[in-house]
């Protein structure tokens, strides 16, 4: 007895069909998420409504909050997308983000005088974060290139190392009066916010959207240009598709590995700087609700496309904002993980289709 259904690879698939499959996946994910919510004793419809309200259709405040949460997701997502395109699994963006925040804090509060003009100080902070983030990721890149150390494990372990490293400074030398916080940033070390202009435009009062968002959009454009027009972008595409071919045509795989991971870490480091300088205004424990990890999901759902990264990051930013309203913690990560799992599984239906063969025993 043969199975009545045969799996056959598709030749081509229309945009409409692809969109349909993606939509079905999203619906399934929401359904499963709803089931999980029920399991935790929460009304799923109310929860989804609350999330939507807080994130998107609650007026200017909601949109601003969403964009603020989306900013580090965009940056980390870009970094992840760059690396993933080359099949380099930088899952340690969180660690690079943490160290970037550390470097920015160091520059802001300890290593450079606060009397520097604001643009200069902010630039220095950004540079420090980018360099440290890049270097941290490049370490994992070098380990991979020279010793073939699995980058998933090395970047992940480095996340925990970075976390303890930051804690050392937060609880120790940088602690303000014994509390696990660094001193608040001077105004010259804070990113510009829309609410800074509230005196001139009263409608902007309370809108915390900061310059980091613009920076993130610029970064997205830069990454898009990099991938499309530069030799490095071409090399990334080739190595991501077939590294052996890349090697055979003369691409230096080791150097490209380190370079791409460095760029990836630079984006994540910048995300750290943008968070401490635009939102938290100091270095403290757990200032990141796992942006670097969420960014993995963002990058993948965006199909590693920089423009889509912005879109998906905004959606997920909204989810983060909204899930503050919903009781059980962990709901955001649960929904995100479910969504990714379902979407990844649904790609099967885009690549194959089922052929009905009938139940007869004879072929």
């Amino acid at each position: 007895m043969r199975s009545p259904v045969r799996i056959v690879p598709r030749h081509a698939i229309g945009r409409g069909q692809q969109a349909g499959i993606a939509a079905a996946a999203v619906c399934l994910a929401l359904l499963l998420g709803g089931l999980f919510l029920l399991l935790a004793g929460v009304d799923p419809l109310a929860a989804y409504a609350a999330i939507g309200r807080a994130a998107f259709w609650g007026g200017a405040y909601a949109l601003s909050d969403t964009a603020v949460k989306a900013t580090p997701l965009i940056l980390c997502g870009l970094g992840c997308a760059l690396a993933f395109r080359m099949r380099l699994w930088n899952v340690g963006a969180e660690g690079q983000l943490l160290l970037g925040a550390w470097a920015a804090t160091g520059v802001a509060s300890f290593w450079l005088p606060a009397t520097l003009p604001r643009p200069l100080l902010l630039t220095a902070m950004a540079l420090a974060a980018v360099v440290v983030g890049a270097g941290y990721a490049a370490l994992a890149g070098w380990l991979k290139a020279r010793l073939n150390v699995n980058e998933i494990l090395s970047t992940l372990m480095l996340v925990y190392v970075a976390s303890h490293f930051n804690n050392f400074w937060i609880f120790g030398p940088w602690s303000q009066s014994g509390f696990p916080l660094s001193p608040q940033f001077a105004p010259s070390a804070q990113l510009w916010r829309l609410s800074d202009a509230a005196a001139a435009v009263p409608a902007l009062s309370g809108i915390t959207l900061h310059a980091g968002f613009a920076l993130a959009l610029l970064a997205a454009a830069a990454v898009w240009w990099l991938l499309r027009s530069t030799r490095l972008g071409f090399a990334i595409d080739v190595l991501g598709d077939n590294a052996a071919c890349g090697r055979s045509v003369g691409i230096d795989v080791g150097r490209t590995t380190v370079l791409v991971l460095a760029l990836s870490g630079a984006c994540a480091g910048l995300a750290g700087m943008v968070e401490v300088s635009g939102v938290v205004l100091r270095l403290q424990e757990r200032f990141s609700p796992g942006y670097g990890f969420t960014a993995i999901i963002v990058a993948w759902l965006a199909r590693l496309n920089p423009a889509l990264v912005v879109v998906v990051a905004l959606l997920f930013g909204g989810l983060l904002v909204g899930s503050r309203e919903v009781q059980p913690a962990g709901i955001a990560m649960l929904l995100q993980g479910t969504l990714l799992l379902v979407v990844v599984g649904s790609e099967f239906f885009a690549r194959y289709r089922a052929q009905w063969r009938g139940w007869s025993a004879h072929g």
Partner: protein
Amino acid sequence: MAEGGALAFVVNLLAAGVASGTPLLIVTLGEVIAERGGVLNLGLEGLMLVGAMSGVLVALPTGSASLGLLAAFTAAALLATAHAVVCVSLRADQVVSGLSLGFVGIGLASMLGAPLVGAQAQLDRFAVRPVPFFSELPVLGPVLFAHNVLTYGALLAAPLCWLLLQRTRIGLHLRAVGENPEAADGLGVNVTVYRYAAVCLGGGLAGVGGAALSLALTPGYVDGMTAGMGFVALGLTIFARWNPLAAVPGALLFGAIRRLPLDVQGLDVGWLANPSSGYFFNMLPYLFVIGVLVVGNLRRQQRGLGAPAALGRSFVRGERR
């Protein structure tokens, strides 16, 4: 420090290492089985947390740690089935599938485990049961024979896993599936069934490892209590060259290193006494994993042995190029 003191310190450290390394050993044994079958599971962290949470969730009302253990295995195995479906049947990329499963597990454990935090007082746990006579032996006694039943089980499971893989038909088929699924399929071995079984068993053992934390070691449930142990298990699998026996010393060593900050701070020696040094000790286990991977790769470059050849690759029967 007195002579006896030094020896006692080391013995204590080793014994604590065995206990502390048990959860890691259990998870690693499970992952070795799964990876021998050719499936990578990056969601071990989430599965461990789900196991830890489920163990406490069931042990609290029922008052039985054993039932909690069973619940931990079942819950994690069920969740791991999703990974099997997505990457074996639906042929998705194993890395992404595993990672997303991990997120699901972390979120689920966090969500359902929130009311459980702080309830360890009434929790039935696996108590230490020294083996009569053997636990009196010098050095070996406290190190190997004065633990709870989970540790004994883990230490016995390692050679049993090896026997299963190397000396049974099931193990032979599993190994073939992980090295060359096309060949195995051509000879009538059902690749899909073996991979599903390996993934579910591996996932279930990850859950048991989590329960070993929450029902014995810690005890109790705390958000994020595994602190990366699920990922460490992946590194240990590589370091052990996919050999269950070799996972034992690695896990014990890691356990000892985990214990180091606690034991060392009791010593009043110079810099070690400074509370800040604790942060650097906390980094040690993770740096140790990286070191282990580096050393492992240096050795492998000389010998040329590696992972199961089909690890990470989806199996598709007869797809024509």
